[in-house]
């Protein structure tokens, strides 16, 4: 089994340790990821699409035109997945859009028919749950995880076509398979607030503050995410919120790939967990994990 790998911008250029754990997990599962030269920004469905739909379609279709793997393309980022699936959706739904996009692409000697299958890495993990189970060396017992699905992993369901848009199960199932507990909490299905940071920072902080409060109240000792925008929103803002509101948030944020890799027996330092702003060391010590 193999897929082309679409890295996007945020993970490789700002949070490369998330890429490291993701690559390790796929290697261990025996799923080959092919690096492809020449990708641009996906582009951002919460940014470029909002200011110019045609540019979003053109750049997205150009990226998809570079994929040549029959298994399709996967990404570690929910935003990239939404863009690439969205571009496919519009190209296949509307012939005038397909023609327009190909007119743009013609200028750079490319063409795209809308046939490349796009998957989120968490989808591929879920589809390989049995294989994942076989590779577990250290069940994550004692980890009380607040699962944050994020919006673009699920919606719009007509474009994403994966899991339930309001009552999803896939990431909870993966977390439980790893031996951890998935803690139910209020606001589980709410947006983290990252996209509104570009227009209203206070509102963005309010959104993430409400989620963190609910997570703390529910007694979770960490959060798991599958999108780098959510990751940054959860991790980078805890200190600022503490300063503003006299709270004491210090909740480690994990990428799903990091939890899987830890359960597979990889050491925290191999995964670059030391690059996290909120260090998970105390949590690991309290659970008796080797650091």
């Amino acid at each position, binding site marked *: 089994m193999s897929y082309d790998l679409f890295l996007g911008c945020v993970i490789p250029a700002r949070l490369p340790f998330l890429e490291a754990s993701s690559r390790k997990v796929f290697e261990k599962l025996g799923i080959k990821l092919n*690096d492809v030269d020449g990708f641009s920004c996906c582009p951002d469905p919460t940014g470029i699409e909002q*200011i110019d739909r045609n540019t979003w379609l053109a750049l997205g279709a150009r990226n998809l035109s570079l994929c040549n793997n029959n298994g399709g393309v996967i990404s570690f980022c929910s935003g990239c997945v939404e863009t690439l699936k969205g571009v496919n959706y519009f190209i296949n739904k509307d012939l005038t859009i397909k023609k327009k996009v190909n007119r743009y692409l013609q200028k750079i000697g490319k063409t795209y028919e809308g046939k490349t299958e796009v998957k989120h890495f968490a989808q591929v993990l879920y589809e390989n749950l049995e294989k994942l189970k076989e590779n577990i060396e250290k069940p994550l017992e004692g980890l009380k995880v607040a699962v944050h699905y994020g*919006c*673009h992993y699920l919606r719009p369901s007509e474009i994403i076509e994966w899991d339930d848009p309001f009552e999803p199960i896939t990431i909870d199932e993966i977390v439980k398979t790893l031996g951890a507990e998935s803690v139910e909490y209020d606001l589980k299905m709410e947006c983290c607030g990252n996209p*509104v940071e570009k227009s209203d920072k206070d509102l963005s902080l309010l959104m993430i503050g409400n989620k963190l409060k609910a997570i703390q109240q529910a007694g979770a000792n960490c959060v798991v995410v599958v999108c780098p925008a959510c990751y940054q929103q959860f991790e980078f803002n805890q200190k600022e919120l503490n300063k503003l509101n006299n709270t004491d948030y210090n909740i480690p944020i994990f990428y799903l790939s990091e939890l899987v890799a830890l359960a597979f027996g990889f050491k925290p330092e191999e995964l670059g967990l030391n690059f996290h702003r909120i260090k998970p060391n105390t949590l690991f010590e309290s659970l008796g994990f080797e650091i």
Partner: protein
Amino acid sequence: MSVINYKFRNEVLKHNASLSYCYQCSTCSGGCPVALLTSGNYNPRKIIEEAILGLQDKLVQSQDPNPWLCSTCQKCVELCPQKVELTEIFVLIKNRCFKQSKTPEAFLAQAQAVLENGVAIPYSKAILTRRDKLGLPEVKTASLDEINELLQETNFKKHLLKEG
């Protein structure tokens, strides 16, 4: 006072016919996290109402309600009993705002980065060292000539340069 702009109204309806299905039930606003936290100042139902009425000055010039506050969580689209493609219509409105220089600075900064680097975040020296340390391969990003040509073709470059 708001004035109906028939040309704008017809363009929006032509672009997305689902707009005309809206019967103003407000399910969208009831499920919208931003409407909840702004006491209804941001209000997807109202944006749709203004779009149906063709109130371009409200939507684009005075931005009341402000379409840039949408978090793109896509809940409204899932919840709408009439299958109105709300976020599609919001994209159309915000695309109009961009063409009329009514875009928040952070969106333009990201657009500028993509125009200059092909990617939204350029690779700093520190990150390249960190990638190396983590044993990650070199990333070969898009040819800038190609991106430039494509963005010229979609008129993106022209609008962005106009923004200065």
